[in-house]
């Protein structure tokens, strides 16, 4: 019983995390970053930016 409760709580956590994450990611439209990169591809690819 206890294990089931824990699993349910973990699943709930994942559900909350997943749901909120999906909304956040969708709102911020991550493909926009890729689109901008593709518009002006540099000769040397950035390792990252600050």
């Amino acid at each position, binding site marked *: 019983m*206890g*294990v089931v409760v*824990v*699993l349910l*709580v*973990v*699943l*709930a*956590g*994942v559900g*909350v*995390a*997943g*749901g*909120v*994450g*999906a909304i*956040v*990611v969708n709102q*911020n439209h*991550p493909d926009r*970053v*890729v689109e901008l*990169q*593709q518009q002006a*591809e*540099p*000769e*040397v*690819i*950035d*390792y*990252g*930016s*600050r």
Partner: protein
Amino acid sequence: MRPNGLKLYATCAGLTLAVLAPVLMPGYVLVYDMVFTPRQPLNAVAFGLSEALPRAVPVDAVVALATLVVPGQLVQKLALAAIFFVGALGAGKLVPTDKTGVRIVAAVAYTWNAYVAERLFLGHWTLLLGYAALPWVAMAGLRMRANEPRAWTRLVLTMLPAVLSAPGGLLALGTALATAGRRKVLPVLGIGVVLNAPWWVPSLLHSGLSDPAGVTAFSARAENWGGPVLSVLGLGGVWNGEVVPISRTNPVLPVITVVLTVAALLGLRELARRMPATRNLTILGAIGVLLAVIATLPGGATAMTAAIEHVPGAGLLRDGQKWVAWWALPFAIGLAVITERLNARMLVAVLLMGLLPDLAWGGFGRLEPVDYPADWARVRELLDDQPGDVAVLPLSAFRRFDWNDRRTQLDPAPRYLPGTTVADDALSVGGRLIAGEDPRAARLRAHDYTGISWVLVEYGTPGRADENLLKRLEKVYDGPELALYKVPGVPPAAPNGPPVAPVVLAWIAAGSLICVSLLWRRLLVGRFAPPQREE
């Protein structure tokens, strides 16, 4: 197994699946520094015996050996799963409590946080393997402190995942020193020095210094209005803004970070009554935070620049946020202990996950397995058993291929092709170039192809190959993704790395220590040791 133990294991498995479920599909996750290939070459570079600074030693050699028997994608999935499962389980077990809920909070706090998310999305899986080992190293250190027989063998074995990389090895050594106490400094140092020898010996044999421009480029970054110090205290602050989860810009986060930090410190005060070395772990955490933010403090960048300009190996300090791992452990167990008096411990665990929802499901598209195009296997076949080094064009350390959804990824050629591959190692951060450390790559940038027998051109990624150069070469293969050229008349390059003998001795020393530890624990030899107090 006790029922409450089962709950902890179930939580660790749940955390692992919550992050890595999409990663477990067939294929290779190729993102930033994380490169896995079907079969990694076991060459001189993997042992630090090339001209370049040995930055991926000994992990490249270990992965190469592993992929001799297991496909590379399985090695990758096992390594990534171990980060979450082993790390969470270790943090949970480290807390001295009889309440499983408290252990679960520690497990969640240690693995579901910004440090793990940012380093995972940056592809720093070896660093994270070391991170996952830290709670186990701490437990082994505490056993040494208590003079338990054969505890040193446990320390050797728990440090193994960490010593795959230089930062991981140092993180583990610091944790072991903090937990084992003053009276065990010498044996712990001895173990640390020997186990880390496969990377520090070849590093000492190289005379190269790192580019000091990396100090500011790789310094901790403010993720919200709280600035770099609060970002780091909340276990975030990695230099690369592209890998930072969007939830880290949450405007409430600095306040929550202060609350959680105070709660963790109160928990550590309570924990100090039950667990020796709590104070040392807290001090180590403070050192980690200081190292992480030092380049952002007045005068800190100047001091670090001077160190990197003049001290070989000081380049290790330039991405200082990685040392926050030392704070993550006391933070997680302190936070867990403070929840001991709460009835809603599970709620705390769920809330910790809710603060960073975008770590779930492989970061929602950040980590996604892909297959290498068939050209890669074809070129590898052509180069099998062929002597000579391969130069890779376009000259750029990173790639963006359509077949990997144009994610930024390290060039896979050095780990895919047999033999030695010379690729550019200069790094561009926000358009600012940070010089590389491989003299052979520097010669390629100067159009000097001395000692190169083959040229591989990768298509579909930014950058150009020198057409005038290619016209002078013999085309051996031309596919949709790759072209291979033979350089006529060039003899195979002679190895020009550090002397082999010290490096071999380093591997023998580390290997011997591991073997003796295993024998001492498992076989007859260990039976001559005094009986254990408790196990």
